């Protein structure tokens, strides 16, 4: 008889001692309460699955031994054939076109000004359309991918212009009032209007969000008037164009990030102004990498970051709020500064990017809007270093910067499972802003 290994004996004693912790008294009752809410699965369902015992002998039994499996496979095959043939017919009837258009990015090579460039998704045909300092994410695709809204200056005042993706055809939106400046903010979903932000003004009442027609045909309309001492910035239209979310930036907050304050939603006509971020938190916008809030594709919800007080501790999380009201719900764990959050075009996923925790490795996460199925795409625990991501218009890809701990790298694409696909740029730099337009 082989003597018993003393290590195993010690291990078993230890396991017994560890297991002695009592189960919570309520655990069984809680489980039964939950079970009461779900029905037993019907016998036919389990029959189709071949039972639930699933002993190894069942696993090695050939599938063809089960007639019900053959029946279901046959039905699936028939259905798939119908779908494939039908889709082929429909595709032949429709013009072929990709929904992914050009990519725009801002590249900072630490030499001179940052360059603003558009390129096709394979990385060729780079077109530099602007150079700027201290601009960050200040250029915006029109919804149809045919134009870009950019900042410019006229007589020393901040103004907004619209250009073609190749940098030509610049058209500066004309404003009769020279006492305040208006910078680019957002396109309305139909592209007919633009929201602009007044961040320099002679009078306090001039600070706010403004709206005008993108072709310059309508008068300027002030939608919000900033709270005294604040500015209203980073406007973002809801998908139906009826509402605008924006940052009420409080310059009195510690200067730890580009802008911090509160997230508000307002109707595009200026009515029904509401604060969104929870009490005791601060909404933060960073100067680069992406937008700090995102509307759901159906416009009923909005996700955003919020930082717990004190602000300079940087304890940040992603929250989701119903536009019609109710308390926002935190959908992520607390982490470091959240630089961007973006909803997938199909509404099924949310991606957010988080600054590093002092280890030089930012993190990018993906999860369902209710916070489930969370997984890390970029950062420690993954083979990828870099930061932040934005969806392709067709929702099949994520564009991100892959780089080193100093933020230098190139733009790449990955799928939503974190599988790296293509390298887009081939010039190591800090890509401080990137977005993807639909095909015109």
């Amino acid at each position: 008889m082989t003597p018993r290994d003393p290590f195993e004996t010690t291990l078993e004693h230890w396991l017994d001692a560890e297991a002695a912790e009592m189960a919570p008294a309520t655990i069984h009752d809680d489980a039964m309460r939950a079970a009461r809410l779900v029905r037993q699965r019907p016998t036919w369902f389990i029959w189709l699955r071949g039972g639930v015992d699933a002993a190894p002998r069942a696993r090695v039994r050939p599938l063809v031994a089960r007639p019900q499996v053959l029946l279901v496979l046959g039905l699936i095959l028939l259905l798939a054939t119908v779908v494939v043939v039908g889709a082929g017919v429909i595709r032949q009837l429709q013009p072929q076109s990709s929904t992914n258009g050009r990519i725009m990015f801002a590249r900072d090579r630490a030499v001179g000004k940052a360059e603003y460039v558009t390129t096709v998704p394979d990385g060729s045909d780079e077109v530099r359309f602007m150079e700027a300092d201290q601009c960050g994410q200040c250029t915006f695709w029109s919804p149809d991918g045919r134009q870009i809204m950019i900042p410019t200056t006229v007589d020393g005042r901040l103004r907004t212009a619209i250009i073609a993706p190749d940098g030509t055809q610049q058209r500066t939106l004309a404003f009769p009032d020279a006492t305040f400046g208006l910078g680019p903010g957002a396109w309305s979903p139909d592209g007919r209007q633009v929201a602009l932000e007044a961040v320099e003004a002679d009078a306090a009442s001039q600070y706010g969000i403004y709206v005008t027609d993108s072709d310059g045909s309508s008068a300027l309309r002030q939608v919000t008037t900033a709270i005294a001492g604040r500015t209203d910035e980073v406007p973002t239209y809801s998908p139906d164009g009826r509402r605008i979310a924006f940052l009420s930036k409080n310059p009195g907050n510690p200067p730890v990030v580009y802008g911090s304050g509160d997230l508000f939603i307002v109707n595009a006509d200026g009515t029904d102004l509401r604060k969104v971020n929870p009490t005791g938190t601060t909404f933060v916008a960073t100067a680069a990498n992406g937008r700090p809030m995102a509307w759901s594709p159906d416009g009923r919800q909005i996700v955003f970051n919020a930082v717990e007080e004190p602000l300079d501790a940087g304890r940040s999380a992603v929250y989701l709020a119903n536009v019609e009201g109710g308390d926002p719900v935190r959908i992520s764990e607390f982490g470091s500064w959240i630089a961007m959050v973006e909803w997938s075009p199909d509404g099924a996923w949310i991606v957010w990017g988080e600054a590093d925790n002092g280890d030089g490795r930012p993190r990018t996460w993906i999860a369902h809007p209710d916070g489930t199925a969370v997984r890390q795409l970029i950062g420690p625990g993954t083979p990828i270093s870099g930061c932040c991501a934005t969806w392709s218009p067709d929702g099949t890809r994520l564009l991100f910067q892959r780089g080193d701990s100093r933020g230098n790298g190139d733009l790449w694409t990955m799928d939503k499972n974190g599988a790296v696909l293509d390298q887009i740029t081939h010039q190591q730099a800090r890509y401080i802003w990137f977005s993807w337009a639909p095909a015109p």
Partner: protein
Amino acid sequence: MLRARQGDLEAFSTLTSSRTGRLFAVARLILRHHELAEDAVQEALIRAWQDLRGLRDPDRFDAWLHRLLVRACYRAAERDRRHAAVELDIERPVPAAGGDPQGSIAVRDQLERGFRRLSTEQRAVIVLHHYLGLSLADAADTLGIPLGTMQSRLSRATQVMRAALEADERTPALAGETLR
């Protein structure tokens, strides 16, 4: 069992109430996390309730329940993968002198550290075999893996744990030598 399979929740509750404590112990050992273990037990019980009608061999109820639990533990561990922090026992009661039946507290701490270094799958094989006392074949059946895989996984887990303990034992000596 028959009533439970016919949809009698009270019968199912009676059937499982005496097993819940052991299920929790298994989940707690595999996951090393109190709340996750609670979640896993609840998920396993609900899944068992949903699928009980399909259990062809009532004598395999316990094995089947353990299989559901281990799968629930895997899912809980996966969901928790992003949590770098591991639950720590804030204050473990220290037995009085001579009251530790298994030797020194240091050994327990070493076992604890070694166990935490194992993957969820490795902890599962150790728990099924060494805590539940299942034979290798039964444990493999519960985990839904071939016997050979079970054997190699258990062997590897034991090696990892031994190595961790031996490394822990060596560390102070090396530190001491460095100091000299």
